[in-house]
């Protein structure tokens, strides 16, 4: 498909609106009801600003806007193509749900420092949208680091010993890897290519000149793979379970959608638009990556099985699913890339529902451990039904979203005639079924009458509704994405 670059200042809006929201939230911190409603309005406007760009991008146009140039080849430049729009739309759509959910969660649990929470939360979202719209590696790196630094106050929100310990781990892993590996990778790439711009026209050629030393290119690639530690590929994964000490809305939107997806998205961007499939195939780096992330796909699922804390289990599930995305793209074929990239959205819809449900259970009953959840399905039927639907998406059962991406992934493995990779995808689905099934069965079919001191449901309280409704909506989004996959496919088709 012919690709045309169009200069468009409208591209600033998806980044500027969340920033403006954050500023307004801070300015109105004295008026609590008003302050709480600002993120809802801001998220709606942001979603609108992303959706208005949808038709243009669907036509195969790439929107670009250069904010400023720092040095030849290093600029702050926003570019939006189908892949970026998919991530931006997913993040801003789920932000709407999460901003409603935040009100319910923070109020029910009477969390402290709510203004700080909202401001950091919103700036992190701006960073995520900036990464989605990043037109070159410098902008991507800038947004990546902004996300790291503003999510730190959210991770240590409770300011107790556990929070500080996790916060330190979070910074050491994310800042350490980006300074150690990513910065070196950027400097190396600048040395080899003379620019940090990406090749957005196709995914085949990348930016490396034919004369670039192959050994150095491989080193740069590996540095990127480990530098984007937000993708939580083992062995750089343990910051993510640690980050679960944060309040649940953070785990839901940031540590299941924005933060981790910024990492995965960055890796995909670098693979497709910086190195290009030709070079990766020539250097056998695609196969290497696929094999390497397969270990994480299976390993993290196995660890999830033995975790009884619900949020920890979800965190390990996230680690496994993120690597599934990278696995798809690293197969370097049409089906694999499509499956991998669309799983960014499908996993986001499902995982945010799962976290929303986990948070609603915490807020409604105070239960965090799966073994204590017997009979909870009767007290919180809508919540746990949403949990069930989202689980189906994670496992990959039709007609829910996850099925479509897993279908593409499996067919990509077949295209490569790789029984091993097909086995990895199928076994991980099986493991998903095992650990999500246990939660579902415990919630609905265990416990019986012992918990009869709690009569009726606890979902009717007004603040609980703020949590239950977003959970249900995002679960339904998963179903919609599975039944109408064409929208996402049409966006990705512009790229392939």
């Amino acid at each position, binding site marked *: 498909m012919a690709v045309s670059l169009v200069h468009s200042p409208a591209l600033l809006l998806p980044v500027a609106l969340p920033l403006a929201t954050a500023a307004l939230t801070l300015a109105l911190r004295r008026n609590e009801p008003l302050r709480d409603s600002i993120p809802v309005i801001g998220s709606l406007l942001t979603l609108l600003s992303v959706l208005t760009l949808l038709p243009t991008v669907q036509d195969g146009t790439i929107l670009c806007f250069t904010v400023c140039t720092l040095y030849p080849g290093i600029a702050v430049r926003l570019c939006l193509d189908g892949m970026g729009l998919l991530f931006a739309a997913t993040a801003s759509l789920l932000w709407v749900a999460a901003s409603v959910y935040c009100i319910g969660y923070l109020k029910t649990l009477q969390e402290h420092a709510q203004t700080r929470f909202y401001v950091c939360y919103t700036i992190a979202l701006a960073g995520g949208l900036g990464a989605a719209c990043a037109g070159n590696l410098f902008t991507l790196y800038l947004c990546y680091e902004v996300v790291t630094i503003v999510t730190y106050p959210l991770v240590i929100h409770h300011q107790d*010993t556990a929070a500080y310990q996790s916060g330190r781990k979070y910074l050491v892993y994310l800042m350490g890897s980006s300074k150690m590996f990513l910065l070196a990778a950027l400097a190396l790439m600048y040395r080899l290519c003379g620019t940090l711009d990406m090749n957005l026209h196709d995914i085949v050629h990348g930016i490396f000149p034919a004369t670039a030393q192959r050994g150095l290119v491989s080193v740069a690639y590996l540095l990127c793979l480990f530098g984007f530690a937000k993708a939580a590929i083992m062995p750089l994964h343990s910051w993510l379970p640690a980050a679960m000490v944060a309040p649940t809305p953070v785990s839901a939107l940031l540590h299941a959608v924005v933060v981790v997806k910024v990492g995965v998205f960055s890796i995909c961007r670098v693979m497709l638009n910086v190195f290009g499939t030709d070079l990766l195939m020539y250097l056998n780096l695609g196969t290497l990556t696929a094999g390497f992330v397969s270990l994480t796909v299976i390993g993290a699922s196995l660890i999830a099985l033995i975790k009884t804390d619900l949020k920890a289990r979800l965190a390990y599930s996230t680690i496994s699913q993120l690597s599934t995305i990278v696995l798809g793209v690293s197969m370097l074929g049409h089906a694999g890339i499509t499956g991998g990239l669309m799983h960014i959205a499908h996993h986001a819809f499902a995982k945010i529902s799962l976290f929303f449900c986990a948070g609603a259970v915490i807020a409604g009953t105070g239960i965090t451990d799966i073994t204590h959840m017997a009979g909870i399905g009767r007290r919180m039927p809508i919540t746990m039904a949403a949990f069930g639907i989202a689980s189906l998406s994670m496992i990959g059962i039709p007609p829910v979203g996850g099925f479509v991406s897993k279908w593409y992934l499996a067919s990509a493995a077949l295209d490569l005639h790789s029984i091993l990779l097909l086995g990895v995808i199928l076994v991980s689905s099986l493991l998903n079924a095992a650990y999500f099934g246990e939660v579902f069965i415990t919630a609905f079919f265990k416990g019986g009458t012992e918990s009869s001191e709690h009569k009726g449901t606890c979902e009717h309280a007004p603040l609980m509704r703020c949590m239950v409704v977003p959970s249900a909506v995002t679960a339904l989004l998963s179903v919609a994405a599975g039944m109408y996959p064409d929208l996402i496919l049409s966006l990705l088709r512009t790229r392939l």
Partner: protein
Amino acid sequence: MPSLLFNNPGYPLLSMLLCLPLAGAALAPFVRHQKSLRLFGLVVTVATLCSSIPLYTEFDRAFAGFQFAEHYSWLSVLGIDYVVGVDGISAVLVLLTTLLMPLCMLCSWREVQERLAEFIVVLLLMEAALIGVFISLNIVLFYVFWEGMLIPMYLLIAIWGGPRRDYASVKFFVYTFAGSIFLLFALIALYVATGTCNYPDLLSYRFNPRMQWLVFVCCAIACAVKTPLYPLHTWLPAAHVEAPTAGSVILAGVLLKMGGYGFLRFCIGLAPHAAQSAAPLMTAVALVAILIGGCLALGQDDLKRLIAYSSIAHMGFVVLGMFMVSVRGTQAGVLQMVNHGISTSALFICVGMLYERTHSRLLADNCALGSSMPRFVTLFTLAACSSFGFPGTNGFIGEFLVIIAAFEKNIVLGACAVCGVLVAAAYMLRAVQKIIWADRPGNHQHGAAIHKVLSDINIREVFVLAVLAGGIVLIGFRPSVVLDMTSASVTMLVQRLSG
């Protein structure tokens, strides 16, 4: 060589910049009241800042030689003329000096109460001497200012310093003076060899290798003490810890830059072949400074010591860039000098503000300020981010260009430089984390109890930090404001190296 000299505005701008603070220093003792004295100092430094603006606006960015030049015969028999002029490199340093001085006045507003008239005089003399160093094009004149600057700095530490001021001021004086002896030796050798003291004339000579090595080694020792490079750095933490805030700001902001400036002017400018041959050694020394400075900063509990050691690491980056023998590297080195001047000054001013409130510079006494001083911690975090090279701040682009230049030279070199950035992130984030939150809940409550009475920074203090924060963000996104000015001069310098 007249083609190297050129006066753009047609009036003696540089002499004005030199005389304004001198005149101010002469008049200050006649001002009576404390408040009017402070205002007087501020007005003089702001006037100097305003008159230095043409240095930026009128600067011919395509001209590689010396601009705004003035040449008056003085002691012609001895070859001592009054020659002043700036190229891109010195122009940005003069601008940095004139920008920092009003901020020094403002940040000492409450801190200095005793012997105020003397304090203002010393600061103004210091400004004149620093401007003099950067604009002198006669090596004798240069040496006079280079040494003359020691006296006000010595007084600043020895009179308004902390409890160990005697030790620190003497150590500072002995180290830098001992280093300067070598510089004097090299300058005399240059005069004997050529019979001229004018720098533009010296540039036209091609010295033989022995002479070049003599000049290089002598000047390198003098500059290595000033910069300072490991292991000649030990005077710096002592001086910083004892100096008043304004002293620390000048010390870190401008004084250290004299070392870097000397490297460019004398070591690289006059002894290019020796510099070329010594480049691997100098890179190694710079890397040691980066890594050891960073590691030492990691273990500090005193905030001023922490920033002092971080300065050593940052100046290591400056020297590393300069000795990459490439336009990119040298440009990055100069840019990094400006960056360090801005961000480290901001950090020292922040520590000064903390000290005024808690009367301690220890991290443990200054933790958990996030809720009581939100404005302060925001600006402090920005300055710290700049210090560890967060993208979007000036520190990032400076260090990144140095790292690119290092990678262009050698992969291992680049990898070592990256480790320096990693260590910087570690010690800066540790400090930021403790100042905002403290890392133990008990510590937090203890901090909260003590700091309940602390007031957030006032408008004057916000203004001081906001000016520097503006610089951090401006250069972070538009480094061309500095790079355009230095580009022509740096290109010419590097051509001398490789030509």
